[in-house]
């Protein structure tokens, strides 16, 4: 596959590396000499130096009508440049164009992407803000990934010592709670992770990935022995960038009684934020100022979210917040190396805005026919994908039991019309069903073949 990637920032670099590793022909356009050189030295890709929003530069990178490029990904820091490169690309035969949109207006409504002729427009800031909101609302969840357009999600819980589910097999779990639409799709125990079967017994200390509905998650929290959930009352946000702003806006919209306080050091930014946000109290000050944090009630807060531009500050401030008594400290971290430190940090959750961007891009490369979102649950070696069963699928008319899905593949949810349910062995798949599939990384293509997705 011929791929052109515009911009070699954090996202561009990661995606280019992954693509090259999988054997695609990757051309990277980068304007900054230092970044270009880094890519050239470290990755097996071609590098074009120049502005990726200019036709000549794109032509040089091989974007021409004569030999169409299969995929173009614009992921520079500037929306205008991304939109323009994709627009030029589409008019020069690019099959699929993916644009990063940092400004949230562009992803507020889907029509913008359509009208601009861009296939997919992704805002990493928006998805990470959504994730943070979920993590705040479901206070005991360690991570969450959105599925079925936000109606359901994957929630990660750690099994407590005396939890009702501890020592219970999954079969037993489903028998005891037939009305609970939930399925456990992955279990991390010690240093290993696996996709559980019906006989798997859950143990205290297990990290369980459960698929569930937003309005039923509280029952799962109980079953995993999480502390009694109290309604969200106060949230402190540090950093008024795009992520911080979006989290504040979402909380204002969805959680009517939450007291939201946002701290930023830059007074001009504070002025702008206070004008654009509603009831959020914008504070101009240093988030490392202990007195300020104490005065603004960090000790009695239900969430402390650090969203500044620096990963290191976010981690350190997150730890500070935790030590000052917040119930849940969440840090935004962009670098992979830091994400893997999660276990060693006294922060409750790390979230990565680049993950959703990378997942969506990788889905287009690996499973170009599947629709919907793919989520890489990054460091666990399993993948989740949403796909629609087509008319000509070989799986039609057969029960799931008869599909002979190999070990390591779980059909987690089926969305049929307005109805979403966990499939049983005797469930028959119909054309048009949207399925959410969970599989070990090496089994995903096999599973997609069986379902014909």
């Amino acid at each position, binding site marked *: 596959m011929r791929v052109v990637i515009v911009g070699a920032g954090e996202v561009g670099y990661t995606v280019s590396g992954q693509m090259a590793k999988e054997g695609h022909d990757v051309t990277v356009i980068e304007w900054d000499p230092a970044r270009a050189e880094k890519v050239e030295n470290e990755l097996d890709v071609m590098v074009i130096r120049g502005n990726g929003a200019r036709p000549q530069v794109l032509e040089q990178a091989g974007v021409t009508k004569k030999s169409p490029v299969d995929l173009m990904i614009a992921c520079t820091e500037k929306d205008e440049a991304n939109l323009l490169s994709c627009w030029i690309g589409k008019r020069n035969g690019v099959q699929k164009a993916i644009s990063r949109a940092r400004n949230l207006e562009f992803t507020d409504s889907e029509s913008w992407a359509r009208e601009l002729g861009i296939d997919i427009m992704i805002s990493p800031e928006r998805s990470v803000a959504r994730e943070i909101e979920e993590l705040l609302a479901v206070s005991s969840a360690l991570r969450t990934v959105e599925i079925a357009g936000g109606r359901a999600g994957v929630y990660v819980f750690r099994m407590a010592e005396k939890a009702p589910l501890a020592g219970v097999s999954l079969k037993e779990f489903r028998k005891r709670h037939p009305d609970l639409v939930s399925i456990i799709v992955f279990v991390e125990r010690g240093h290993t992770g696996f996709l559980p079967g019906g006989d798997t017994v859950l143990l205290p200390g297990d990290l369980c990935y459960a698929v569930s509905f937003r309005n039923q998650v509280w029952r799962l929290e109980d079953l995993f022995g999480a502390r009694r959930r109290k309604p969200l009352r106060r949230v402190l946000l540090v950093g008024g960038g795009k992520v911080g702003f979006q989290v504040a806006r979402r909380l204002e919209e969805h959680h009517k009684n939450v007291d939201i306080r946002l701290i930023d050091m830059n007074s001009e930014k504070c002025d702008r934020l206070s004008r654009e946000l509603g009831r959020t109290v*914008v504070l101009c000050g240093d988030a490392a100022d202990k007195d*300020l944090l104490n005065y*603004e009630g960090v000790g009695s807060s239900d969430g402390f979210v650090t969203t500044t531009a620096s990963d290191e500050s976010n981690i350190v401030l997150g730890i500070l917040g935790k030590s000052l008594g917040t119930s849940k400290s969440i840090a935004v971290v962009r670098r992979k190396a830091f994400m893997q430190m999660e276990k060693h940090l006294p922060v409750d959750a790390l979230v990565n805005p680049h993950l959703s961007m990378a997942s969506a891009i990788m889905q287009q490369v690996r499973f170009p026919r599947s629709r919907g979102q793919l989520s890489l649950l990054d460091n666990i070696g399993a993948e989740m994908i949403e796909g629609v069963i087509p008319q000509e699928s070989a799986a039609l008319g057969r029960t799931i039991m008869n599909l002979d899905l190999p070990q390591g593949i779980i059909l987690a949810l089926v969305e049929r019309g307005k109805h979403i349910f966990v499939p049983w062995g005797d469930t028959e798949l119909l054309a048009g069903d949207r399925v959410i599939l969970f599989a070990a990384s090496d089994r995903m293509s096999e599973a997609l073949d069986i379902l014909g997705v």
Partner: protein
Amino acid sequence: MRVRIVAKVLALIGGVVSFCMLWPMGWAYMDKTPDLVPLGIGMFSGFGISGILYLWGHKAKAPDLGPKEAFGVVTFSWILASIIGGLPFWLNGTVPTFTDGFFEAMSGFTTTGASVLTNIEANARGILFWRSLTHWLGGMGIIVLSLAILPFLGVGGMQLYKAEVPGPIPEKLTPRVQQTALFLWGVYMLLSLLETGALSLCGLDLFEALTHTFGTMATGGFSPLNGSVGQYNSAAVDWVIVVFMFLAGANFALHYMVLRGKPRMLLQDPEFRFYSVLVLGAILVIMAFTLAGGVYHDFTTALRYAAFQVVSIITTTGFVTADYELWPFCTQLILLWLMFVGGCAGSTGGGMKNVRVMVVLRQAKAEMMRLLHPRGVFPVRIGGKSLGNGIVASITAFFVLYMGLFILGTLLMSGLGLDVTTAIGSVAATLGNIGPGLGGVGPVHNYAAIPLVGKWILSGFMLLGRLEIYTVLLLLFPATWRR
């Protein structure tokens, strides 16, 4: 300030005002009454004065008005209009002195409605029509009228527009200021037509329907009857006037939006909502007090009189159907406060305007939040949109100036020998462009008894109130006069 340019533009506006006297002359001609002569003399002296100003100023280069000239033009054109407009009253013998004529005309143009006439009905229809017409011209503004009909004022017209249109941030409806002026007058005329029609249906003849419409839509308050609207003693007339007074007290830009098919704009507008809630609240409280105080004995009567008085006062119209001085004292105080609030920005009403009161209240809230969160940043918001610090400061200063002028005025008037209630009432009623005040200038009295100097002072306050202080006060600064 380049005085000649000011003179040239003034001449044009003076011409427009004088020309408008043709309409009352029509009534006088039809009635064959002797007031035709003074009106005619008034019109021709108006043309004469304008002619002299034009001769003096016409050599000035094209009228590119700067902010200084704009303030000069607006203030002086209102004074000029009142001089020209007051002449017929004096010449006709309606009022004994030129001062009274000037006072009456200023009261008309500024839509105050404070009168020195004791027996109104003794006058011929021509002169009474002119008296009401001054309201209608001044309501939407003589500058806005001139902008609408004199296209060459377009250059620098925005300066004039800003200096005359009430409210802290005058909005343009269209890119061109002349078009905006035309639309505003269009909406104004449409509402006036509707009211005239409605009043005619209630049984008023064309003359009375028109004069009352002028008084209502301009939120003026002159009535050709001695007993004001109360003389009809008709619930239908009362309610028609209440509705149109209420509309005239709202922002005409909003009415324009409603006519353009966006009625939701009206309900979403924060100032309109504040205004509606304030009116409803005041009506309910006053109803409760008057019913409890035994002034009225049934619900509908109390509602009718409370609604009329409240709307008439808050919109700064000044029609009366009941002598509120006979009501419990606290209801009079509520009315006095409403005099300060006034109408909405961009309406024909006077007072401080609802939006300014809102901003000052929000500013107070923001200050309290700042005490609670010393590091917090709290913008002052109206309808979700935050106002710049400059606007908030200017509004706070306006508030202080308004109160300062009120206190100064009360001092001056009591210095002239008026009792406290009359002094307070007369200044509040003229600065807010309401008309009837309290005590000696209350709803059943008039301003005839005020000393000569007092009438000049109060005329000044009417002008200050109509042009929202800054425009007029600026002329007292020497820097304004320097080139």
